[in-house]
């Protein structure tokens, strides 16, 4: 079974925030909620500036799912982690458990009372009827059901952000790694890659 994965190539990411805006426009997400964000470190420091676009990583052992008191998360067969907004009570535990800061909560309401959680759906909608209006309202577009790749990756100007079947993503990664030569981890992503990378 294929597994859907994101991969952001920090050699390619130019911090243009195109993915962020593409995502928000596609899913009509309110201001203040960012399913995807671009992080830049060492801005302006020669040779050290790096950018990376991050969103939900769709973990196979998703901590958000483990911690959720209402058990509103579910993992699709293709590895996409989705959640049920009808169940979510907005407690925010997933935010604490997530290593990537993917869960987002809006700021509306008095005393900053949080709404329900919103996060990257890999453009795969949610538990509502596929391609229905309710689904769009709750989770945004369901591009996976339409046979398309997520909006962020399809709009990425430099094709730093790749999304799709892990095996395919891995192939692209291997291709680029081989072309670039040394100094790149052989494993895309994961903590291991991080720790051995440099």
């Amino acid at each position, binding site marked *: 079974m294929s597994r859907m994965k994101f991969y952001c190539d920090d050699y390619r990411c130019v911090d243009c925030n195109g993915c962020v805006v593409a995502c928000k426009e596609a899913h009509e997400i309110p201001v203040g909620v960012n399913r995807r964000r671009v992080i830049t470190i060492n801005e302006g420091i020669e040779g050290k500036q790096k950018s990376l676009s991050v969103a939900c990583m769709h973990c196979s052992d998703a901590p958000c799912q483990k911690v959720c008191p209402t058990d509103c998360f579910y993992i699709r067969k293709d590895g996409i982690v989705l959640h049920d907004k009808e169940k979510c009570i907005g407690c925010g535990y997933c935010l604490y458990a997530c290593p990537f*800061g993917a869960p987002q909560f809006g700021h509306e309401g008095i005393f900053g009372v949080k709404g329900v959680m919103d996060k990257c759906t890999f453009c795969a909608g949610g538990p509502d009827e596929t391609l229905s209006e309710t689904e769009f309202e709750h989770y945004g577009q369901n591009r996976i059901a339409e046979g398309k790749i997520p909006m962020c990756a399809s709009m990425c100007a430099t094709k730093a952000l790749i999304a799709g079947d892990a095996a395919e993503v891995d192939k692209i990664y291997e291709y680029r790694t081989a072309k670039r030569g040394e100094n790149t981890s052989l494993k895309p992503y994961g903590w291991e890659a991080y720790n051995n990378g440099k």
Partner: protein
Amino acid sequence: MESKTFWECNKAYILTALGLVLVGFVFVKYLMIMDWGYLIQFTLHAMLGDTSGVMSAPTSELQQMMNAAFGPAYNTVAPEIIRASNERQEFIWYVFFAEILIFVLLYIKNGRVNPTITKPNDTVQVFTSFQRAVIWLNIGMISVLVLTGFNITWSLRSEGGDLPRLLREFHELTGLAWIGVWLIFTIIAAKDMKGWRSNSTFRHFLPGSYKPSKRVIWFFYAVMGAGLCFSGAMIITLHPSSLTHADVIQFRRVLLYLHFGASVLIMFFILDFVYASAISVKGYLKGLWTGTYPREYLEQVAPDVLEDLKKVGRA
């Protein structure tokens, strides 16, 4: 007074401390997976104003990126949050069972004090209407907080949805409102501190003087309340945007953990209040409502209160 030994003077404190250390040791040693070294370091850093959670400069670009994108040291606190929130769902019953057991044992040992009242009409007003308002507001709010809090913890049983979400929001709002009540209770808890002058308003805020066993309960109630108020309010107000996420997430994790811990511990003192007011002495609860007690009741159960009231001329 001088004849009392150190042990006799501080028995209540020592026993409470020992109890907490014992419970704490068992939990920390055998049940928790928190990186305590990190937590202690973090707390020190946070006190100095650095709440980012980055304890030492990153050694690699990747580590730096992780710090900037995801927040530092995921493996220190977050797994504990996951464990705690899961185990709270499953095992918090046992904690309550143990706590209730303590009071059952106390009851078996001490029974119920039943003061003999011969002159029910000779009453003294102990609690002013303000004091009663505070006390009952506290009882009400705590009940709401406990219920709505469990609503979050145990929402696996409710399976989420609109009502539990509403209750969760109510928990946050009530919590914020409770901060005011908690403040008054803190004053009450500190009312016989040596620093106050003997005739100050604080000292007479609530009549009577504390025995150590009573004071320690007030004291812990105030301290745990502080933890809850601080962490709760911070969690609500210190809301991370996607760009500040990495800077605050670790702090929020620690705050949530503080909230978890304080809520479990404060339950003991809440139960103690329930035991003390509803079970240990007959007639206490009624007086709490009316504000007046028969003089004989006070003579038998709380002579110190009567003494205090006489001083200010209310008895």
